[in-house]
């Protein structure tokens, strides 16, 4: 098992691929692998890219990866696609768009499906990012369809989150509904050559100026096109510096605006370093990872305990018959655990 870790750290592509498979499948031994890899991480820059299906995420990611490669950086990409709730199967098609990096092994592209049954997709994503980081990737891009809590959790593994908004994606209420405004550090209006792109940029800008309840008046310099640095302007000496998300226009399939997008990502990275937010963000991320793992493991422990006691149906029967109630059941199942913990703590 540790051979796999050694091979990964030595730069063997098939070892990296196999580690991610083990992470996805939660195969025996995957926890030890991820544990062993942790000390080798911390150098990668993690970027989340999200947006509705067809917004152009994969195409943009392809161009961004190619640009990073031109600059001599190595890139890892994790692309998450939905899986069928019926068969559990999935067609993962994001790879089709990776044409600019064809045959380049230093772009490690991995498709993952949102396997419903295993749960904990965000845990698997975090662990896969760990593997890519330990492998030595400079830039790691996590790409996912932006709809729902799961996806929001996933992009939280990223230092910088880019949200793609295609032109004509409804009126401004739609944007509010999707809840995308809160998670984006950089907004991209892709397919900016289409009709309605200007209007979408305009709407986005108005929505963003209202975000965080900040006043809309007298707010200068925010959200300049092209993602230039004016968005970084400090609000005053005594106030902590805040980040005004820039809006970048791109036409990804023609590589237009990709440079500006990368600059915007870099600006946000600088902002994170300058304000100490990166450190805080990292700490928050580890805290939530620990909490998630605790919850998952405790759940599993309790599920086993429940199974050992004859399964949940037995208790449900008793509750239906009014012999007992849900609270009493929970107390009954948990009591030995509580006793055990108390004993250990005191002893």
């Amino acid at each position, binding site marked *: 098992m540790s051979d796999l870790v050694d091979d990964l750290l030595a730069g*063997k*592509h*098939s070892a990296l*691929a*196999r580690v*991610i*498979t083990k992470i*996805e*499948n*939660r*195969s*025996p031994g995957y926890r030890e692998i991820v544990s062993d890899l942790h000390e080798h991480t911390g150098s990668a820059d993690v970027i989340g890219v999200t947006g509705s299906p067809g917004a152009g995420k994969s195409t943009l990611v392809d161009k961004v990866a190619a640009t990073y490669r031109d600059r001599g950086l190595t890139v890892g990409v994790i692309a998450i696609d939905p*899986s*069928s709730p019926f*068969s*559990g*199967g*999935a*067609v*993962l*098609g994001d*790879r*089709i768009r990776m*044409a600019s990096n*064809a*045959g*380049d*092994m230093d772009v*490690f*592209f*991995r*498709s993952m*499906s949102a*396997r419903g049954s*295993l749960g904990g997709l965000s845990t698997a994503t975090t662990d896969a990012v760990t593997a890519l980081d330990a492998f030595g990737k400079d830039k790691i891009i996590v790409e996912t369809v932006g709809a729902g809590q799961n996806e929001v959790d996933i992009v939280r593994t990223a230092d910088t989150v880019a949200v793609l908004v295609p032109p004509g994606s409804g009126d401004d209420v739609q944007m509010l509904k999707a809840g995308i405004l809160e998670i984006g550090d950089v907004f991209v209006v892709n397919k900016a050559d289409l009709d309605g792109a200007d209007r979408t940029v305009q709407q986005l800008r108005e929505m963003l100026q209202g975000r965080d309840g900040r006043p809309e008046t007298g707010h200068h310099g925010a959200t300049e096109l092209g993602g230039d640095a004016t968005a970084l302007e400090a609000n005053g000496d005594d106030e902590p510096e805040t980040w005004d998300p820039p809006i970048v226009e791109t036409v990804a399939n023609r590589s237009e605006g990709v440079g500006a997008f990368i600059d915007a990502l870099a600006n946000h990275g600088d902002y994170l370093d300058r304000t100490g937010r990166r450190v805080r963000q990292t700490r928050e991320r580890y805290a939530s990872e620990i909490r998630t793992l605790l919850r998952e493991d405790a759940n*599993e422990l309790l599920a*086993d305990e429940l199974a050992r006691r004859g399964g949940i149906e037995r208790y449900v029967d008793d509750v239906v018959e009014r012999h007992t109630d849900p609270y009493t059941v929970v107390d009954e199942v948990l009591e030995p655990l509580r006793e055990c913990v108390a004993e250990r703590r005191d002893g």
Partner: protein
Amino acid sequence: MSVEQEQAERTIRCLVAKVGLDGHDRGAHVIARALRDAGFEVIYSGLHRAPEEVVQAAVQEDVDVVGISILSGAHNTLVPKILDGLKEYDAFDDRLILVGGIVPDDDKDELRNLGVDEIFGPGASMEEMIDFIHDNAPER
């Protein structure tokens, strides 16, 4: 207990690859869909892939099954390149290699000798292929 169960129900990953100058992807689409409906995870390569791209995808995606669709008759040139690439990246032994398309009988033996596990020609049924994958997917 749960661990073993998950192992048994391990999701099988398949690459469906179109290689070379062959623009006929209807069959590959149909197969991708059938494999998906059989509960597999399918990575579809898109059209006109070079052998190196197929290797890159097969290695990085760590697929259990590499399905190569060729209708152009160039299998004797392209398939060995893919097999060599997989060996180079130490990704050959624990992978099922399938070829689909129009392969003359004389060529089939040679492809098998090179390491192709099975060849499906016109008239092969989906069930046949899905059963073959279930029965022969590599132990990992």
